[in-house]
């Protein structure tokens, strides 16, 4: 299942739709599991009348978790060594998000590794999170 350095090259890509038509319920699930109960994510009365947003929006960490699913589906389970993102745009209920991975480096030392760029976009093509990941791979 693991990626092999001998079969990988810079520029290889992987694409996965990580959520379709994001439901408010999933945002509630994330609040409950993560423990981040900030009402901007779940409380429409608060977020519109107090915080001044059009409606609730996803936790940045939910969007990172969705991107992480694409990353681990690509690199394999238990192989990840680094994963980081910058949050650039909010994610709203109804969004469909696609994560694209691009191999930027394949290292063939004692511990072979792969580095990928991670970019998640919404249906308008706007980037919502962007970052990098590295993972151990097979020779």
């Amino acid at each position, binding site marked *: 299942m693991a990626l092999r350095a001998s079969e990988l090259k810079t520029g290889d890509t992987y694409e996965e739709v990580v959520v379709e038509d994001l439901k408010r319920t*999933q945002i509630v699930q994330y609040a409950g599991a993560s423990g981040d109960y900030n009402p901007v994510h779940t409380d429409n009365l*608060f977020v519109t009348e107090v915080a001044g*947003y059009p409606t609730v929006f996803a936790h940045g960490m939910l969007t990172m*978790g969705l991107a*992480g699913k694409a990353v681990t589906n690509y690199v394999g389970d238990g192989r990840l060594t680094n994963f980081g993102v910058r949050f650039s745009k909010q994610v709203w209920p109804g969004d469909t998000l696609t994560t694209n991975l691009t191999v930027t480096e394949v290292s063939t030392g004692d511990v072979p590794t792969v580095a990928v760029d991670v970019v998640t976009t919404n249906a308008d093509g706007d980037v919502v999170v962007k970052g990098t990941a590295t993972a151990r791979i097979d020779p």
Partner: protein
Amino acid sequence: MAVDRFPVEAGHIMMFARSVGDYNPIYSDEEYAKSTEVGGIIAPPTFPQASAQFDPEYRLRPKPGEPWMGSGKNPTSLSDSGGGSASRGLHAEQHFEYHRHLKPGDVLSAATNPGKTWEKQGRRGGLLKFSESITEYRDQHGELVITARSVGVATEKAAE
């Protein structure tokens, strides 16, 4: 953030994986997980964030006897009553370094130290104030398992 005891539990991992839409059986099925290279259930990569559940001071969780900013019958703003509203604080960046992956049975502790701070003029949100924090997660044997770096940003008005 200081967390003295974050017990990593299989049920919590399953709930967390579901919440990020990840139904990979490595996060829930012990028999399957045993048959893989990994050898057992592990936690998804962003699971360390759930340490908030075990942080007694975590401010984004309602606590008995304390005012909560979320709405009941009416919208509530703690800033109206002199408290602080968290609504202007947003998460700008998050990075994890995995020294190994978390598994059920781990009992973690986490200590957070402040990192750099900087300011930037936002295009629509006014002055943006960034602050970094570094959290080290250690297991019950004192081994460093995850290093997390988080960047928060405070804005002067709602971001668009």
